[in-house]
């Protein structure tokens, strides 16, 4: 079952690479934000894959289970707890970014990063 873990790792690396690619090369700001959120998903997938145990069971102790058998067969639950937090943080970050984009769209009328988030130091320094 090592193939499963390998495939999962490949998929998470692919997601991270897609995210990094979109951060540099995609101009539309909403698509850029979508792309960057894939980095977060890839990292989450990776961390869950750490806790996975091939042929194991879900780390919930049901009544009637043998404790020693459970301890040697259950998946490692600590990474799952971390990912839960991370998912929620990612969603809230995405929401704040989209809200800022909506405000900025009203000012610029375009979604292009080159226009919206260009260098502003010259305009504001000497506006007369």
């Amino acid at each position: 079952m090592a193939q499963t873990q390998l495939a999962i790792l490949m998929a998470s690396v692919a997601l991270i690479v897609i995210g990094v690619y979109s951060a540099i090369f995609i101009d539309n700001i909403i698509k850029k934000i979508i792309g960057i959120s894939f980095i977060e998903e890839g990292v989450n997938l990776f961390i869950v894959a750490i806790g996975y145990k091939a042929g194991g069971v879900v780390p919930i102790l049901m009544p009637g289970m043998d404790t020693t058998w459970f301890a040697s067969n259950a998946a490692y639950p600590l990474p799952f707890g971390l990912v839960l937090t991370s998912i929620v943080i990612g969603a809230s970050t995405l929401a704040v970014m989209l809200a800022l984009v909506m405000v900025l769209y009203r000012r610029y009328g375009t979604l292009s990063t080159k226009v919206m988030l260009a260098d502003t130091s010259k305009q504001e320094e000497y506006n007369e």
Partner: protein
Amino acid sequence: MLEFVLCIIMVLSAILALIQKDLLKAAILTGFSGGALAVLFQILLAPDVALTQAIVGAAIVPVFIALAVKKTQRSDD
């Protein structure tokens, strides 16, 4: 076997979302990617994470993006 299919679905829909011209389609494809990830979490023995990811990744995030698209513009040019 299922996990390979899900990995491919997830990565493919991520790529497809980024090459769409229509941003609403991109939002829906993001939901596909998040949903596939949720099922993948279930296969990886993390049902609690899968539940959260199913709600957040497959429902809330696409809705957020769709709302943002509705308030701004739909086509990417």
